[in-house]
Every structure is written in structure tokens, then in C-alpha cells.
């Protein structure tokens, strides 16, 4: 292992999400995206992902690490769930990543 730690290299979280939801072409709102660890695999399947988190450093990391082939499908924002303005009825899936 080159890094001191690696979270979920087996992608168990995303595998679980895929067992219960079909992300194909879905419009996804991710609440609490952090550094984008779940955002990227979701975006590989989804039509679009709007992902936000109040942690500006984590969102900056997510933006920097976003694969170029996903750039057109993912929008990141720094915001809290209690304050962000979200359009009504705009998403097929709302994903709370440990953020409730």
C-alpha cells in the first residue's frame, strides 16, 4: 500500500448502491459528497450529478480529482443542506452520503 490509508478500495459502498438503485441516465442529487469518492462511480452511470458538501476543502479535492470524461455530467457546489437552493422536482435520485 503506497498511501497510509485507503477507504473502501473494494467499492463496497457503490456496489451496495447499485444493488438497490438503477443509476442509468438518472438525475442525481448527492448530499454530502465529501471528496467525491461516491460521486465518480455514480456519475459513470448517471445522466447527471449535482453534488454538494459544506466542506470547501473536500469539494476542492473532488473537483481536482474529477475524471475529465465525467466533467460534463458532474456539478459540485460548496453548501450546506439546510441552506442550498435546489430546484423542485428536478432529481430522480437523492443520495444522502452519511449526511442526514
Amino acid at each position, binding site marked *: 500500500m503506497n498511501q497510509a490509508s485507503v477507504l473502501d478500495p473494494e467499492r463496497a459502498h457503490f456496489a451496495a448502491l447499485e444493488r438497490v*438503485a438503477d443509476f442509468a441516465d438518472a*438525475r442525481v442529487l448527492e*448530499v454530502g459528497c465529501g471528496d467525491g469518492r461516491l460521486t465518480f462511480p455514480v456519475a459513470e452511470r448517471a445522466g447527471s450529478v449535482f453534488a454538494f458538501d459544506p466542506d470547501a476543502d473536500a469539494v476542492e479535492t473532488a473537483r481536482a480529482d474529477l475524471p475529465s470524461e465525467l466533467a460534463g455530467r458532474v456539478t459540485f457546489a460548496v453548501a450546506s443542506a439546510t441552506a442550498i437552493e*435546489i430546484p*423542485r422536482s428536478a432529481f430522480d435520485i*437523492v443520495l444522502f452520503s452519511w449526511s442526514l
Partner: protein
Amino acid sequence: MHVLRRLLDALAPEGIVLDLQVIRPHPLVEVDDSILCEIDGSSLFVGADAARAAVDLLVAERLLEEEAVDDHDVRKHYANGAALVDDFETSERAIPVDAIPGLQAMDEECVVRERCRVRRLRQGVFGWTAR
């Protein structure tokens, strides 16, 4: 208003909510698939329990309908025991004090394994007719 109730407005009719949370039992530290010690995960369970209660309330109000649950293990891998101890120095969760010296001396890769749950909830009839 709870954040979940607020963000339900973002869902299209018959859209779904996916809620990821940690669940009991407490996380385990493992080396070569053998359990070394248990980590007190109580601090995370407080928030997870509150989240579950908020979701359950919306299910009771028929704003959401629970459709599926998936429990699974998630692992965080550490290059050695010292890296694990360092990581938990800033965590709300605590490694047992008597396990720290052994971990500090451990050169092998170790893993923290914790149980998580994803719930799929679909917006109920009361959810979008009430708009």
C-alpha cells in the same frame, strides 16, 4: 424543518431517496482477517440513530415508502498499525487504550471494518400530491 423533509422537494414524482448510514455492531480492527479489537462507534451511532428516526417518521407519514435495505461491510485499509492510530487521533471514535501499544508496533497492513446500511425509499403518494 429536517434536511430530509426539505430536500424531498427536489425529488421528481416517484423519485427515490438513498440513505447511507453506519449501523451496529461496533467497528472492528482486523489483521489477516483476525479480530484485533473493537472500536467504540457510539459517537457515530448517535447521528445515525437520529437519521434513521427522521426517515422512519416520514415513512410513518407516508411521505416515503421503504422499498429495499442493503447491509454491507466497508473496509478502511491502513499500511500499518501506527497509521491507524494516527488516523483515530482526530476521530470521535476511540481505539481501546490497551490496544494502542500493540498497534503502534505493528508493521503489517490492518483494516477497520464497519457495518453500513443503505435504504432505498420512494416518494410516497402523500409526498408529491401534497405539493
